[in-house]
């Protein structure tokens, strides 16, 4: 497999204005401004092979969008070098654009007032897609999703889910080598999320398109990505297979408990009772989740401790989810 994207020691810095607070502050801002430099992306390197689906993860403001903008040629790195498909994207944005597709969150790139099919026809002209390529792509689309009802509907009248679907189809239309999807399933209902995941998966398989996906939804990651890259505060925290990730912190399992009485109170109490053991306690409306590092503490021991002082109504034991691993990485970093 050849590398389609190579990122070498890339750093991106921004200058931002320090705004002062309050009425007095904005009066001062009128006369003097003070800027500070922020490193949105800090010395990141990675290579991505043709046909991979890479999940690009990180909390809000981690630098995901900045990296994607650099790969699409919208931003130029402050230091370092990015090659996409052998080109420097920021040096020749238009040429790079021919080979990539982009879906940016909820911002539709389609013509707002045009029916989808007309948008497709315009894209065919803009990307100079040959007739055969275009019709085979449309045929493929028709076999994958039910687009017939969408084709003649103006984009402005579509639901968010339909719009996202249309945007993804439009991004793949010119059979690009790489497609960037920035939070493609944000704000969608469960069945639409599923539909979109299946579609992305199928298109990736069918056309061997490299897909780079940022998301906060671990469902997307589990359904699509073999490999994930995690960054936070501009620094790369993790870059490896998703299976590898789960064993990354040793063997973790989650013990879920439903006690009698107020969950919040119990959860606080448990935190005290279990202090000193390698566990972390969180709670939601239904369950108290105790993440146990089995290399250091036995699940049975934990159970013993907590049932001493309370009645347990219900419990279950779960393998650690991607979501929890990632939360641990965000919280604690990689040791």
């Amino acid at each position: 497999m050849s590398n389609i994207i190579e990122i070498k020691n890339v750093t991106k810095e921004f200058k931002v204005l320090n705004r002062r607070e309050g009425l007095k502050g904005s009066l001062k801002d009128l006369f003097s401004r003070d800027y500070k430099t922020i490193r949105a992306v800090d010395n990141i390197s990675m290579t991505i092979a043709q046909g991979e689906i890479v999940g690009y993860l990180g909390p809000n403001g981690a630098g995901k969008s900045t990296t994607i903008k650099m790969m699409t040629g919208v931003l130029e790195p402050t230091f370092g070098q990015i090659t996409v498909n052998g080109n420097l994207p920021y040096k020749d944005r238009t040429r790079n654009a021919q080979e990539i597709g982009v879906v940016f969150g909820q911002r539709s790139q389609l013509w707002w007032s045009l029916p989808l099919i007309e948008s497709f026809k315009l894209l065919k002209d803009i990307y100079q897609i040959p007739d055969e390529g275009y019709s085979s792509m449309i045929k493929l689309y028709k076999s994958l999703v039910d687009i017939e009802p969408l084709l003649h509907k103006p984009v402005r009248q579509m639901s968010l889910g339909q719009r996202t679907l249309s945007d993804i189809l439009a991004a793949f239309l010119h059979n690009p080598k790489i497609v960037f999807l920035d939070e493609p399933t944000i704000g969608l209902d469960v069945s639409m999320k599923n539909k979109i995941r299946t579609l992305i998966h199928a298109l990736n398989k069918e056309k061997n398109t490299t897909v780079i996906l940022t998301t906060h939804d671990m469902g997307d990651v589990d359904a699509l990505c073999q490999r994930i890259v995690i960054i936070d505060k501009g620094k790369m925290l993790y870059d490896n297979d998703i299976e590898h990730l789960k064993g990354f912190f040793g063997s973790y399992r989650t013990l879920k408990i439903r006690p009698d009485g107020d969950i919040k109170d119990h959860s606080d109490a448990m935190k005290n009772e279990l202090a000193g053991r390698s566990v972390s306690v969180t709670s939601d409306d239904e369950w108290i989740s105790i993440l146990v590092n089995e290399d250091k503490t036995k699940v049975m021991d934990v159970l013993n401790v907590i049932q001493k002082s309370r009645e347990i109504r219900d419990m279950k034991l779960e393998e650690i989810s991607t979501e929890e691993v990632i939360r641990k990485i965000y919280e604690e970093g990689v040791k």
Partner: protein
Amino acid sequence: MKLKKYFALTRAGILESFQFRLAMLVMVAGNLLYLTVVYFLWKAIYASSGTDVVNGMTFSDTLIYLVLATALFNFMEMYAVWEIGRSIQSGKIVLDLLKPMPFRSYLFWSYSGTFVTQFFATFLPTFIIVCVVTGGAVPLGINLLYFVISVVMAVIINYSIDFMTGTICIYTESIWGINIMKQVIVLLLSGATIPIAFFPEPLKKAVSYMPFQSIYNTPLSILLNGSPKAETVLSALGVQAFWCIVLLIISNLFWKFSLRKITVNGG
């Protein structure tokens, strides 16, 4: 205190407008440019007329009138039609209606911050400069008091017209078209671009039956008249007060009536 929540909006408006320091600079520059053009244009007109007084106004009268009309315009223009129209089209209106005050007041007080900054940033400096430059051509006496009263009523009339026009956007998608129609009518017939004294007789008569001249022509005429007869001022203010009340009532009724359309159709 009840007023406090309104003043909170005023303060937020002031803060916001400071953020746009460049916009303010540009606005001042734009006004200067406009006034320059106005100055030379009218100078040429007076030069070619051969007399010092045209339609009862001297060159400096006309100039002061137009300069202050521009300042008043900048002070009063709130782009309320746009605001209402967008709010209706985006559906944001539903949120605005949930605010703990009537929409009409909410919108007005949100703008009041801009009123304050605009007053100090454009109107007051312009007024002072005009007074100094013309060396006493603007009479400073009891007419100032009348002027302030008149401007307050002008603001209310202008806002009512804006609000009414904005309400029309409930019925049509065309904010641009509605707004531009309102704007050209108001600017022309209120005497903001050309003093009403210059209008031909029939037009002058027609305009006198309309509310528009109360916005610019009335306050400015009152200001420029140093020794006003009580009955002239009173009748001018009376006409303004009449339009104030009529337009307040009409715009409120129209809004309430139209609002039913939103609440029935769900926006």
